[in-house]
């Protein structure tokens, strides 16, 4: 190898390392955001835990939760988290077609989840059990609704990313952004584990 070629190769390698360090920093910053979001959810969980017995003569969780319906929602979200992870793997392999397919599936599953949740909210409100009914329902709608809002934002982000992937090519920067999106999406599934257990399963047990 000539000296010049070697110098170029070293320069390349240095550039690569620097870019990876910058990318690591972004990932860490995003991780810090996710952890602070956990604190937001924790305060909503605490509110729910304090208020969930205060039904004010209205229905308790046991009376209004439709368990098979909630299980379907849970499985949709869990599967979307899985396909999202596979999507990032294919992005790191620079397989553009597979990225679009996998994130497309994730988008569909996530949208179905959000649709099911909104229809659940609508049915509750139509039956007279809106957030105005009792302390329990206020805290329920706030907690589950905040998660739903995060899902909606995630879906919007995903749709924008898919358009950009479709139009452009999978640059390192795009892969980094898809990785951040997948972190966000996995995080929402992690929050849902606790909503499923604490709100729905414990609600069905009547404790």
């Amino acid at each position: 190898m000539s000296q010049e070629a070697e110098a170029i190769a070293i320069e390349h390698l240095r550039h690569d390392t620097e870019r990876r360090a910058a990318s690591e920093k972004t990932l860490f910053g995003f991780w810090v955001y996710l952890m602070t979001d956990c604190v937001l959810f924790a305060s909503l969980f605490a509110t729910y835990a304090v208020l969930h017995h205060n039904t004010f003569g209205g229905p308790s969780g046991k009376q209004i939760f439709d368990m098979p319906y909630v299980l379907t929602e849970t499985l949709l979200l869990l599967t979307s988290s899985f396909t999202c992870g596979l999507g990032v793997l294919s992005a790191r392999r620079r397989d553009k077609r597979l990225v679009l397919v996998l994130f497309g599936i994730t988008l569909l599953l996530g949208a179905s989840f959000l649709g099911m949740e909104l229809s659940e909210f609508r049915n509750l409100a139509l039956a007279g059990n809106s957030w105005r009914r009792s302390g329990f329902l206020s805290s329920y709608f706030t907690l589950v609704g905040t998660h739903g809002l995060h899902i909606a934002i995630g879906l919007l982000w995903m749709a924008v990313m898919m358009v950009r992937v479709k139009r452009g090519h999978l640059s390192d920067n795009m892969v980094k952004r898809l990785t951040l999106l997948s972190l966000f999406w996995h995080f929402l599934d992690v929050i849902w584990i606790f909503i499923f257990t604490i709100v729905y399963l414990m609600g069905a047990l009547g404790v």
Partner: protein
Amino acid sequence: MNEDTDIIRSQRRPGRGAFITYVTGYLLSLYLTLTSYLLVTRHMGTAWTMVWLIVGLALVQFWVQLMFFLHLGQETRPRWRLLIFSFMTLVVLILVFGSLWIMTNLNYRMMGSPEKIKQYMQSQVGL
């Protein structure tokens, strides 16, 4: 020099291992979710036993998703992500259990319900 570059390139390309990680995480989460669901819907014991079981299963699933989906275990030193995660856990525990503690205490001091307070006040009228 070329070899070095190749090594770096190969590190960035995920192998079969990464794929298997996601499949394992998914199957474990699926299994844990269905187990807690069946425990609750089939009434496999007293309510409080079930609560402890499903909370345990939720924590296991939390760990599974952290490791297999969020890759918290694959971080190299210094483990900043683990550090801030631990701090978040501390804040969450203080927030949730602190609120429950204070509110239960308050409830106890308020004697549980307005009716009981009224009763108490009436019983003290003679004093």
